[in-house]
């Protein structure tokens, strides 16, 4: 992780990163679509939307390259949540089974979603855009961080993770950024325990 941070810092130092990157809060998340960007690190879900919504864009996909060769990725996803005590449990069950059936997977993939069942991925992606295959390959090398506090720790604009990436890449004190992020994350986890 240190090496990755250093790589990013080097890019900033060499003036390869636009000034606006330091305050990019994700408003222009998929800036790929305006055709002005050459390369973007982004979640695999965007492959589907580019394929379906922007057939005019010519793009290639690859895994994020590692510092010393190899590739990396992390896998997360959206959840199906069932509220406690619902009287329609059997209908929900039926829907989930359908979503994970070969037929359901196919429908999801056709609409730009990445296949979730690796065992039938080949079957699911058959006849679809080959670039979606990269997403399936990513799952092989992906790590999956797991927490109930994902929003607080990672996703929110004021999360320790968001603060950390900015501080580590654009700030002056990399060690401090690591230490602060560690402490802040721990504090959030500690406070969440009821």
């Amino acid at each position: 992780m240190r090496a990755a941070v250093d790589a990013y810092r080097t890019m900033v130092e060499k003036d390869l990163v636009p000034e606006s990157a330091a305050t990019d809060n994700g408003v222009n998340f998929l800036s790929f679509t305006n055709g002005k960007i050459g390369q973007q690190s982004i979640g695999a879900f965007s492959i589907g939307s580019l394929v379906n919504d922007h057939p005019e864009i010519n793009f290639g996909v690859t895994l994020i390259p590692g510092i010393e060769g190899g590739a990396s990725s992390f896998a997360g996803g959206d959840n199906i949540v069932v509220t406690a005590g619902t009287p329609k449990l059997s209908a929900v069950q039926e829907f989930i089974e359908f979503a994970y059936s070969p037929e359901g997977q196919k429908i999801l993939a056709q609409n730009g979603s990445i296949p979730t069942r690796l065992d039938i991925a080949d079957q699911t992606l058959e006849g679809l855009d080959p670039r979606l295959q990269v997403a399936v390959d990513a799952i092989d090398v992906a790590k999956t961080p797991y927490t109930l506090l994902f929003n607080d720790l990672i996703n929110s604009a004021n999360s320790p993770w968001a603060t950390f990436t900015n501080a580590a890449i654009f700030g002056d004190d990399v060690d401090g950024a690591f230490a602060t992020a560690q402490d802040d994350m721990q504090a959030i986890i500690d406070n969440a325990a009821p």
Partner: protein
Amino acid sequence: MTIAAVAPVAGATRRRSKAHQWKGLLYIAPAMVLVLVFFVLPVLFTVWMSFHNWPLMGQPKWIGLRNYSRMLSDTRFLSAIGFTAFYTVIVTVAIFALAFPLALFVERERRGVGVYRSIFFLPVVVGLATASLLWTWLANVDSGLFSPALRALGLTEHSINLLATFEGAFTTIVVMVVWKIVGFTMILLLTGLQAIPSDLTEAARIDGAGRWQRFRHLTLPLMRRTLALALILSITGSVLAFDQFYIMTSGGPQNSMISVVYYIFNQSFVSFHLGYGAALSIVLLIALVALSVAQLWLLRVEDER
């Protein structure tokens, strides 16, 4: 309309005055209902929530004062208080330092004074969120106004991202807020200035008081009430600041501009600690009331007998 001419009997008069009181209650009832429904009840409910661990989904659990005791060791909350206090002081000083000269400038009847007043007041009618968005664009490093302008003028070598550092972003926000608010404070101060009879100023001129002495010994003391009002409005507004930080910097860079309200928002609607957010809100409410009482007391005007 007819007026019945009834000979007033002692009993009738009393009955009528009682009916009169009921009628008075009836007239203020709508206002009372509004205050009750939209202020008193929500505050009471917030107090009730603050004694609970109250998640967005799931069952609230009574935890007594634990939400309150948690604040004392919540470093993020304490730093939010520190930042809010810092911001309040800077912004209030900046607004008054500019609003007073402006008020003095537009008080005197001169050519085009109406135009000046309108120009200074115009930003006030823009919403704070709208103004924030406007200034976010103005401060944008690539497509905005300030950075490219500075660069075009040769003052900076390449475009500087104003919002990327605390100093730059904080200055930009303070300037934006002053631009947005100063006209309102100016109008308030102007009414105070205009309430001072010109005879007093002239008497002071004859008494040999110079411009500054007149301001110090006459204008300021006679404007105590106006100043108290303007100060309370300004400080309350600053303590409750949220929109500009949320919109312009998302609390950044690196969470350095999380105000108290921003923190309450995050706790309540990002982390879904609704009980803790409620407790923080109650503490903020008490702090604001205390601040206002303190200011009124400092700027009190003794009853003139």
